[in-house]
């Protein structure tokens, strides 16, 4: 299945809504370079759970080998990486 980065972003924000609410942030407020880890929205185990949920929803599996670990928890690059991989790996 091919998935767009926007679809992934929507799902991620939907999943994280309670944590975002707690910070007083709405989905539109979240910029592309928002770091889910350093902003305290998610912990490292949360990232794995998030990946599991995104993959389950879209029926894809993603290899993160090429994604710079510094970008793994930044919402824009994270979503685009999964979208890009859905094009090449899962077709």
């Amino acid at each position, binding site marked *: 299945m091919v998935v767009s980065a926007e679809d992934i972003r929507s799902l991620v924000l939907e*999943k*994280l809504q*309670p*944590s975002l609410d*707690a910070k007083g942030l709405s989905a539109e407020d979240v910029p592309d370079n928002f770091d889910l*880890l350093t902003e*305290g929205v998610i*912990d*490292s*185990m*949360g*990232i*794995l*759970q*998030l*990946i599991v*949920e995104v993959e389950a929803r879209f029926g894809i599996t*993603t*290899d*993160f*080998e090429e*994604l*710079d*670990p*510094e970008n*793994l*928890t930044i919402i824009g690059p994270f979503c685009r990486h999964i979208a890009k991989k859905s094009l090449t790996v899962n077709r």
Partner: protein
Amino acid sequence: MGTAARLSRANAPRQGIHGGFLHSAERYAHRPAVEVRGTILTYDELRSRAMSLAASLQRATPSGGPPLTAVFAYRSATAYSGVLAALLSGHGYVPLNRTFPPDRTRTMLERSGCRSLIVDGESEPQLEAVLQLAKEPLLILLPERADTRSLRSRWSRHTILGASDLEPAGKFEEKPVLPDSIAYLLFTSGSTGIPKGVMVAHRNVAHLVSFMTARYGISEHDRFSQTFDMTFDLSAFDMFVAWERGACVCCPSEKTLLNPAKFIQDAKLTVWFSVPSVGVFMKRLGALKAGRFPTLRWSLFCGEPLPAEIAESWSSAAPKSVVENLYGPTELTIACCLYRWQEGKSEAECLRGVVPVGYPFAGMDVLVVDEELREVPPGEDGELLMAGPQVALGYWQDPERTATAFVVPPGRNQTYYRTGDRVRRPKETAPMCYVGRLDHQIKIQGHRVELGEVESLLRQEAGVEVAVAVGWPITPSGAGGIEAFVLGNQLEPRAILERLKRKLPAYAVPRRIHLLSELPLNPNGKIDRGQLAKLLADLPQF
């Protein structure tokens, strides 16, 4: 040569755990000792920095305190020079961590009674909060700060020295170190809500270092990972085993640790040491591909149960390395048992898919006992007690807890540490296997968390009488985090969580608080944690 000439190899103090570093600094002055944040420090450079700090500590530390110096620094050059400086000055080091809440750091500093601390640039913003209630005047070394005028006026009762105020390295005077002196004081989670300080002596670490350097044939060509924060005692393995033989410690950033595959390759690591959770992450992210890490000679895991599938995947990703599972609580100095993974043989020795903790280090003695501290027969489960040269000195200023945990069992004549871990006493030559905990301590990515501590703070912050914390989700090596339940409905979970974040390190803060009107009880009238776990299994994960 300057300072180097003053410490010839013959008179370098070999008894302290920094003796190995000084010895290597003589032999390998221009080889790298530490790589951190893109900076490479040679042995000579690191020694100079450490001696300059140590000389400043010797000159200006207020008298009357314990022989301890705090190092408030995180994955920085100052963290390493600070640790060495504390030791060179004749003190033990007390690691503090800016990723912990300042309240917790302040408690640790107060409890330690340190009169001197070394602080790196990025930890400095927290000083205000940490020093708030400091009772005694302190010496604060800020080697990364040029201008200290504003700080001096703000904290006039403390002595503040910046980069230009430090003593030259040549002023350092060697201090003899007794084998029983504290090398480091490390705070771990305590069930009553107050962190307890484990006193580890130089001779404890020296035993581990000599055993490990020989076993792993460490040389000046080795390159060690430093995945552990200094507040985690396993970090001491990386530093002191590497420095003993002139090897380099390579310290990645916190975020790189989420997927350190590229770091392992780029830094050309030869010795890997982490909690198994890092391996679990990497496998999930697709980073453990066959042959990926050809430079690794040793792959070591410790801190939580090692799932067999991770040992297997790591072996294939690092085909030239030997995978070993290490075991040991802080009170037994880093690690005291080990098991070598051997494909084709080890699978059958695993218990419920978890790699055995194996065999004690040479010189360490194992005893598996029942509740009366009597040895159980082979094949039976019991609490693991260990004795030997790595048994720590006890808990800082806490004779009561020390007496409870460090015991002489009936019919024995040496002190054993009660690990609180349940193991299966092996039959004949079989390896020892980990079964579980006796109490409510859990491991979150290798960090010890007493659920009792979380519950006590929850009760306090929520103003309720009953609060329960459970490890959730269950992972092959422990728990992914904590979820909490409190009795009541007029509460504001988010506000409680915000307050907890100010008291607990991030890994120990519950991810959610669930309000219940009643708690499930088991037939004995105790809270049924199994039922609570079932509740969680039915809830969405976020």
